[in-house]
């Protein structure tokens, strides 16, 4: 299971000289298990470059959207496979209580917000409304569950014979549990993350910032650590970096982890361009593409 991180940033793209090490593009992670297919977690602005760099062997892409906030869908309109008739593209995501995925996506993929309508895309497009449970995509069994974040939002757990990965980029389990990280039964997202090889989890804020932003749908780094501890993961990748945090801030942020007691898992903050193989369980230093 090869993983490439194309976008790490939360809320808003923040390109510039002060975000080159962690990246400025919003949420987008590529998973590869088969040579002719890719699974993509979220369609943030990182999706554009993923589309440009896709292997010519690929003919099917499954895009799994956690939710439809702009930082998770803004790359869709610039994803080259959508405009190619030789591509099969499946977009999976949550509907709401009153509107299906197609209706909700159309609010973005239509004028005046975007010049091209969904029905005008050249690819063989399939939209799938997600319910809680399991679905199969090329190379992976995908399990979904609603998690604590404003509006319908799911977390994903992807598994195959070579490993498991959980993806909870926008998640505030603290809001839904006064005794956070004490009880698996009452912890949002627990079953998605339980025992996975790699957990990619929201860690947008410092503790001090979180106190000012309770209910905004995101976690502090210490909450992400507590969640990873409860879920007994093997590796935590803090993700969804705040757009106001430049590289030096994030270096300090994650460097402070080293001063904490040793965690029962390894930790490596998400950096745009990082690629690694879950099967090797991050035994080697992730490379940069």
């Amino acid at each position, binding site marked *: 299971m090869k993983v490439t991180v194309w976008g790490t940033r939360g809320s808003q793209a923040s390109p510039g000289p002060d975000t080159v090490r962690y990246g400025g593009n919003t949420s987008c992670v590529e998973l590869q298990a088969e040579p002719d297919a890719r699974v993509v977690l979220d369609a943030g602005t990182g999706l554009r470059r993923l589309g440009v760099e896709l292997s010519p062997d690929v003919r099917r892409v499954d895009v799994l959207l956690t939710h439809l906030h702009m930082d998770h869908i803004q790359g869709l309109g610039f994803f080259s496979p959508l405009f190619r008739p030789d591509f099969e593209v499946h977009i999976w995501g*949550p509907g709401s209580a009153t509107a299906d995925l197609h209706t909700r996506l159309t609010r973005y993929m239509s004028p005046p917000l975007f010049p091209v309508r969904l029905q005008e895309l050249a690819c063989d497009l399939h939209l799938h409304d997600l319910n*809680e449970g399991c679905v199969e995509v090329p190379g992976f069994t995908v399990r979904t569950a609603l998690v*604590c974040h404003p509006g319908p939002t799911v977390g994903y757990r992807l598994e195959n014979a070579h490993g498991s990965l959980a993806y909870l980029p926008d998640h505030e389990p603290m*809001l*839904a549990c*006064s005794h956070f990280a004490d009880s*698996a039964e009452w*912890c*949002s997202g*627990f079953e998605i993350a339980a025992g996975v090889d790699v957990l990619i989890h929201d860690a947008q804020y410092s503790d001090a910032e979180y106190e000012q932003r309770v209910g905004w749908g995101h976690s502090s780094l210490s909450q992400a650590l507590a969640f990873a501890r409860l879920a007994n993961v093997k590796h935590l990748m803090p993700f969804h970096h705040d757009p106001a945090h430049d590289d030096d801030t994030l270096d300090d942020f994650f460097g402070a982890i080293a001063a904490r007691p040793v965690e029962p898992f390894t930790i490596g903050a998400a950096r745009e361009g990082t690629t690694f193989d879950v099967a090797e369980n991050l035994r080697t230093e992730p490379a940069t593409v």
Partner: protein
Amino acid sequence: MTQPIEVILMRELAGHLATPIFVVDAQGDLLFYNEPAENLLGTRFDETGMMPFAEWATMFTPTNGRGTPLPPDELPLAIAVQKHRPAQGRFWIRGLDGERRRLTVTAIPLQGQWGEHIGAAAIFWEEP
């Protein structure tokens, strides 16, 4: 098993309100009641914990005004769980502190994001 996020949020909301609230799952089994409800039921949730429907529906001995026990299936929460519709009732209970209290109970079914029935919640009011 982790509870559905809607139930988790319902419990957390109840934990922050001064209104007495009781939360059950799709089978009617008790998941939680908050501190204001503890005052009416005469016992702390930490002492009772989660309970099967058959247990909690009788342990507070709900009766009508004439003292006749109410069948569990006629309780507003049972109606909300079984028939998936709101229900209201007025009856007497005897709390585990031995006090008899006259309650008005309004129960609502909890329907999940995708339409599935995931439980019910009830608001209690003590009649003067």
